[in-house]
C-alpha cells in the first residue's frame, strides 16, 4: 500500500516560516506570549498529547477510541474553562479543535437529511437551516446571538460564552461542510444503492455502512478547506474579549514603546496563522492518503 511520507516541501516551508518568525520577532518572550499567552503551558501541552493519541487511534482505524479521545478532549476543555481559558494562538487552535467534531457531526446530519427524500419534513428543515445560516455573515450571527439573543432568554438559560461561541462556530462551519458532503453524496453512482439493497441492507444501513464512509473519505480535501476557514475565522473571538493571537498583537501594539514594531508584529501574526493552516492542510493530505488507498490505481 502507498504508505504516507512526510512531504519534504512541507517541511522546508514550515522551517523557513519558523526561521522567519525568529528573525522577525523582537525577542523570544514576545513570540512565546503570542503562541502560549500568559504563562499557560500545561493546557496546550496536554491538548497536543491528546491530539497525538487521536492521531494514533485514527491510524489504527479504531473509530470507538477516536470518539472517546474526542470526548476526553472536550471534557478537558470544559474543566479548564473556569481556571481561565488559554490565550494567544492557543485560543484559535483549541477552539478550532473543539469545533471540529461538532462541525463534522452537524454537517453529516444536515447533508444526509438534505440529500435523502423519504423524510420530507426533515429535508425541508435541513434545507432551511443550511440556507439561512449560510446566507448571513458569521460576525452578524455572533453579535446577534451573544448580545441580542442573550437578552431574549431567561438568565438561567445562559451558557458560558465560550460554549455559545463553540455552538455558533460549529453550526456555521457545519452548514458549509454539509454542502461539501451533499456534493459527495450526489456524486455517488446509483450502482451503490442497488448493490447495497441487493445485499438486503436497509436504506439506513446503506447510509451508515456504505455511503457515509465513502463520502467522508472522498471529501477529505474539500472538508479541510472548510476546517482551515474555520480556524482563521476563530480570530473573531477578539470581539468578545478573548485574548487570541490577533487580540494579543493589538494589545501589544497599544503600548507607545511598541509603536514602531507594528510591521514586525503583524507579520508575525500572519506567519503564525499560516504555519497552523499549513500544518492542517498537510494533516488533511495525510488523512486522505491514509484512507483513500482504494484510489491507488486512479491517476
Amino acid at each position, binding site marked *: 500500500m502507498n504508505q504516507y511520507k512526510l512531504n519534504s516541501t512541507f517541511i522546508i516551508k514550515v522551517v523557513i516560516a519558523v526561521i522567519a518568525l525568529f528573525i522577525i520577532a523582537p525577542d523570544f518572550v514576545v513570540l512565546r506570549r503570542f503562541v502560549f499567552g500568559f504563562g499557560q503551558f500545561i493546557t496546550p501541552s496536554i491538548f497536543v498529547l491528546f491530539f497525538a493519541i487521536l492521531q494514533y487511534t485514527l491510524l489504527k482505524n479504531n473509530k470507538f477510541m477516536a470518539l472517546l479521545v474526542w470526548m476526553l478532549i472536550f471534557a478537558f476543555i470544559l474543566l479548564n474553562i473556569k481556571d481561565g481559558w488559554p490565550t494567544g494562538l492557543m485560543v484559535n487552535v483549541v477552539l478550532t479543535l473543539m469545533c471540529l467534531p461538532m462541525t463534522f457531526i452537524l454537517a453529516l446530519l444536515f447533508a444526509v437529511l438534505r440529500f435523502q427524500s423519504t423524510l420530507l419534513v426533515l429535508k425541508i428543515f435541513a434545507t432551511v437551516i443550511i440556507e439561512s445560516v449560510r446566507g448571513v455573515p458569521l460576525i452578524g450571527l455572533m453579535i446577534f446571538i451573544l448580545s441580542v439573543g442573550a437578552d431574549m432568554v431567561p438568565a438561567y438559560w445562559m451558557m458560558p460564552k465560550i460554549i455559545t461561541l463553540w455552538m455558533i462556530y460549529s453550526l456555521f462551519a457545519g452548514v458549509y461542510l454539509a454542502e461539501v458532503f451533499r456534493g459527495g453524496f450526489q456524486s455517488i453512482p446509483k*450502482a*451503490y444503492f*442497488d*448493490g*447495497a*439493497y*441487493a*445485499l*438486503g*441492507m*436497509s436504506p439506513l*444501513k446503506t447510509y451508515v*455502512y*456504505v455511503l457515509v*464512509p*465513502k463520502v467522508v*473519505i*472522498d471529501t477529505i480535501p474539500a472538508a479541510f478547506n472548510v476546517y482551515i476557514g474555520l480556524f482563521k475565522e476563530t480570530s473573531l473571538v477578539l470581539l468578545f474579549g478573548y485574548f487570541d493571537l490577533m487580540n494579543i498583537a493589538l494589545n501589544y501594539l497599544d503600548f507607545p514603546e511598541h509603536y514602531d514594531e507594528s510591521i514586525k508584529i503583524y507579520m508575525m501574526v500572519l506567519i503564525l496563522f499560516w504555519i497552523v493552516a499549513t500544518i492542517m492542510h498537510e494533516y488533511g493530505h495525510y488523512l486522505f492518503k491514509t484512507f*483513500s*488507498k*482504494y*484510489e*491507488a*490505481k*486512479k491517476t
Partner: protein
Amino acid sequence: MKPLLTIDQLSLSLSGKEILKDVSCQFQTGSCSVLIGPSGSGKSSLLKTLNLLNEYDAGLVCFNGKDIKTISKTELRKKIGMVFQQYNLFDHLSVMDNCTLALKRVLNLKKRDAHEIAQTYLTKVKMNDYGNAFPRQLSGGQQQRVAIARAMCLQPEVLLLDEPTAALDPEMSFEVLETIKSLAEEGVTMIYVTHEINLARHLADQVIFIEEGRVVAQGDVKEVLDTTKNNRIKKFIEQIEHRLYGSE
C-alpha cells in the same frame, strides 16, 4: 415438482413507461434459466423486479409459494442474490470487506465467522489471494468474480445474474463463465440475462425469449433456440452468431 419462483401476469412500468406486460413464467429449483432478447426489451427490469429493486404494478410473483410483497425486502434479498453488469462493488472497501459487509450488517454474524464464509466463497471463485486488494486494483473479470462471491456469501437460494459478462472482453468473460458453470453444477438456481447464446446452450435448462416486455417464447434450449418457428427469434440468433463468427 413445485416451482421455486412463479411469475404470473406481471406488469411493470417505470416513470410512466410500460416495461413489462403480462409476463408469466416459472423457475424450477436448481435449474438454470436464461433470459435472452434485444436491448431494452425489459430483461434486466424483470430481474430487478424479482428482488423488488423495481416495484411492480400488477400481477403476482411467488417465491416458495409466498407472494414476495408479503415477505420483508431484507428477507427476500437474503434469499435472492443479484450480480450486476457493472459489478456494483463498493470501491472504498477491500474485497474482503465487500464480501463480509452483508454478513456482518445484515445477518449480524461475528467478524471471524463472516471472514470464514467470505473466504470459502472467495476460494470458490479463485479470488482468495486478493482479500486485501481494492476493487479498482483488480481487472474486470476479477471484480465480477468478487461480485459473484459477494452475492453467494449470503447463501441465496436463487442467484440473479444481470449480463455479468457484457462489460468484459472474451478472456475475462471466460473466467467468469467458468465460475458460473461451477455454481450451476452445484445446483444453485440461476436466472441469467445474457447474449451468450453458446452459454445458454451449455447451461440452460430453460430459455425465455423476451421482446418489448412480452415473453415471445419459452421452453428448453432446443425448442427455443434450434427448432423454433418464430421468425423474430431466428433473426435474433442469426444476428448474434453473425456478429460472433463474422459474415461469410
